[in-house]
């Protein structure tokens, strides 16, 4: 019982020490004031979170020891979380202002990108440093498709996915025999090639000037205050007041559904023979081939599916920004996405999600410290590798139930 108070108390104290300089000090000209409410609130939250986790943990371990012979290998709380978290995600945008809504959209895009790269790096074990290429292919695929062919957003989602998957296979073929460092360098080069082509093929891509992207319509309804050319704006159709939040709400909800579908797909894939083949290939390629696994199709499918997810992320990025240009697709992006996958824990879907949220939301919270953002990020990475090398959320392998 003592530990039940002591451990959360330690956590709370640590949180207090850590967050007081960040959230408690308020700059006032050249002076600063100390505010106690925010850090205390954070510490209190940490206390109860820890306490709650401990109680949950104890309950599940008790259950496990009670029925270790039975098949209840799924503790109750992840199942509860899979119902509650999506609900929370659906309610969340209605509570957010425009500013936080755009950040939430960005976080969802990074979740999508992280999930895509997670297939390639986390599951199939191929270090890809040029993942941004597929993001760019998706974004530019939509932007240029709209510019030249009048492609709509709804058609761009599947087409962007297919286009990016094709690029994934194109990259996959030459690197089939490569591993580790060599693979990393080739993929790095591929990412740069795509960016440089976008930057320099001025007649087609507009070069550094970028391409404008129109906001999509929902069943022909527009999101603007006044409809162009006789269309109906959504707010008039629904009979509600115009709000500039609507378009972001729409984008958030669409993206949210796409992310949910992706998560569902990847969880299924992990349990299927293809998913197991990815992981087996990561562990021992020679053994895999002797077992009759075709390493060519398995590797290419990982590249294609990863790229596909990245491409869809790109389409949404283009829409949310209303504009694409090559500076959004530098190596820095690739590194950030890789950081999400590594931070979250290679192969872990909940890990990728939480890491993507942390990586996008934390810099916004720490805006006052923006000069030190990269420094803090670097320190966090170093700390992670020392104390939690397996990532925020350890991979829990789907339990294989039988043949």
């Amino acid at each position: 019982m003592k530990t039940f108070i002591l451990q959360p108390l330690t956590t709370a104290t640590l949180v207090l020490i850590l967050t007081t300089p960040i959230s408690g000090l308020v700059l006032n000209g050249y002076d600063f004031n100390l505010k106690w409410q925010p850090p205390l609130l954070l510490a209190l939250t940490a206390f109860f979170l820890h306490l709650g986790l401990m109680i949950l943990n104890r309950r599940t371990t008790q259950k496990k020891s009670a029925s270790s012979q039975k098949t209840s290998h799924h503790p109750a709380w992840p199942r509860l979380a899979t119902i509650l978290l999506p609900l929370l995600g659906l309610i969340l945008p209605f509570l957010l202002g425009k500013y936080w809504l755009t950040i939430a959209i960005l976080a969802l895009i990074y979740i999508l990108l992280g999930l895509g790269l997670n297939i390639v790096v986390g599951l199939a074990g191929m270090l890809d440093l040029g993942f941004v290429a597929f993001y760019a292919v998706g974004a530019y695929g939509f932007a240029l498709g709209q510019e030249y062919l009048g492609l709509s957003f709804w058609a761009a989602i599947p087409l962007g996915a297919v286009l990016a998957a094709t690029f994934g296979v194109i990259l996959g073929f030459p690197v089939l025999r490569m591993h580790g460092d060599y693979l990393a360098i080739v993929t790095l080069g591929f990412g740069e090639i795509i960016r440089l082509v976008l930057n320099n093929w001025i007649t087609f891509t507009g070069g550094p000037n970028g391409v404008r992207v129109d906001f999509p319509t929902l069943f022909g309804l527009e999101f603007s205050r006044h409809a162009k050319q006789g269309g109906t704006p959504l707010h008039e159709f629904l009979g509600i007041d115009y709000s500039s939040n609507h378009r972001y709400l729409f984008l958030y909800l669409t993206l949210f559904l796409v992310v949910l579908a992706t998560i569902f797909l990847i969880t299924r894939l992990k349990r299927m023979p293809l998913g197991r083949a990815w992981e087996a290939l990561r562990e021992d390629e020679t053994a895999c081939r002797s077992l009759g696994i075709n390493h060519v199709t398995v590797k290419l499918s990982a590249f294609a599916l990863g790229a596909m997810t990245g491409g869809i992320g790109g389409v949404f990025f283009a829409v949310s920004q209303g504009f694409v240009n090559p500076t959004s697709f530098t190596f820095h992006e690739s590194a950030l996405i890789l950081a999400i996958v590594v931070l979250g824990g290679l192969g872990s879907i909940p890990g990728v999600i939480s890491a993507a949220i942390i990586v996008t939301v934390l810099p916004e919270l720490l805006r006052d410290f923006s000069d030190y953002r990269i420094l803090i990020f670097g320190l966090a990475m170093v700390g992670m590798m020392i104390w939690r090398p397996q990532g925020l959320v350890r991979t829990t392998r789907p339990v294989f139930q039988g043949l």
Partner: protein
Amino acid sequence: MGERTSLAQPLLALQEVSSHYGPVRALDRISLTVNAGEIVTLIGANGAGKSTLLMTLFGNPRASHGQILFAGQDITHLPTHRISPLGLALVPEGRRIFPGMTVLENIALGHTALGNHRQGPSLDFLYTHFPILKERQRQKAGTLSGGEQQMLAIARALMSQPRLLLLDEPSLGLAPMMIRKIFALIRSLVQSGIQSGVQPETAVFLVEQNAHQALQIADRGYVLVNGTIRLTGTGHDLLNNPEVKHAYLGTLV
């Protein structure tokens, strides 16, 4: 069993097979056969080319000369992943199980060669031969002991319901007691028919440095020296052959 009537087609036949690692010749015109239902062993010292021979069967490295026939089909130039579906299963040297995956997942991966439509041996069958794997089925394979990993590697190979089971030094790095256990297991597997009656004609090709134990359970044996077959005969004959005794078993008798 010993020699069979030559009318029956051998399950596996190597005809003058050579293979190279770059310019280095590892195998020099090897010819050997394995018949259905036989245990055949290949013994040889370190670097004689034993593992290379098994790898060459799987096209990695590919044979530079000669022909490999499995059940009459030429498999010399088949891609690696197409070979095990024909009915060959390899238990590789050093086991090469997938350490980060659970025991059950490792076993399931052995089923790959059969594709989605063919039924392999049941888990119950595997667990009667490998009771320890049942206890450990949800454990990560990397946490198993050496002997348990070897059993897992064999179980994984059996999942593809092979007509020919290829074992590469199953005794490697194991305690003598575990080695005896593994060898007894191999023998009982063949005697009971690997698929418990479904396919009783399964053959075993056992590559070993542990010549004494390997020859004891083998119907026939080959001795590989520097990439060529030096001797061949029944297991019993080779055990009593003075050259083999001198080279592999020690002359103290």
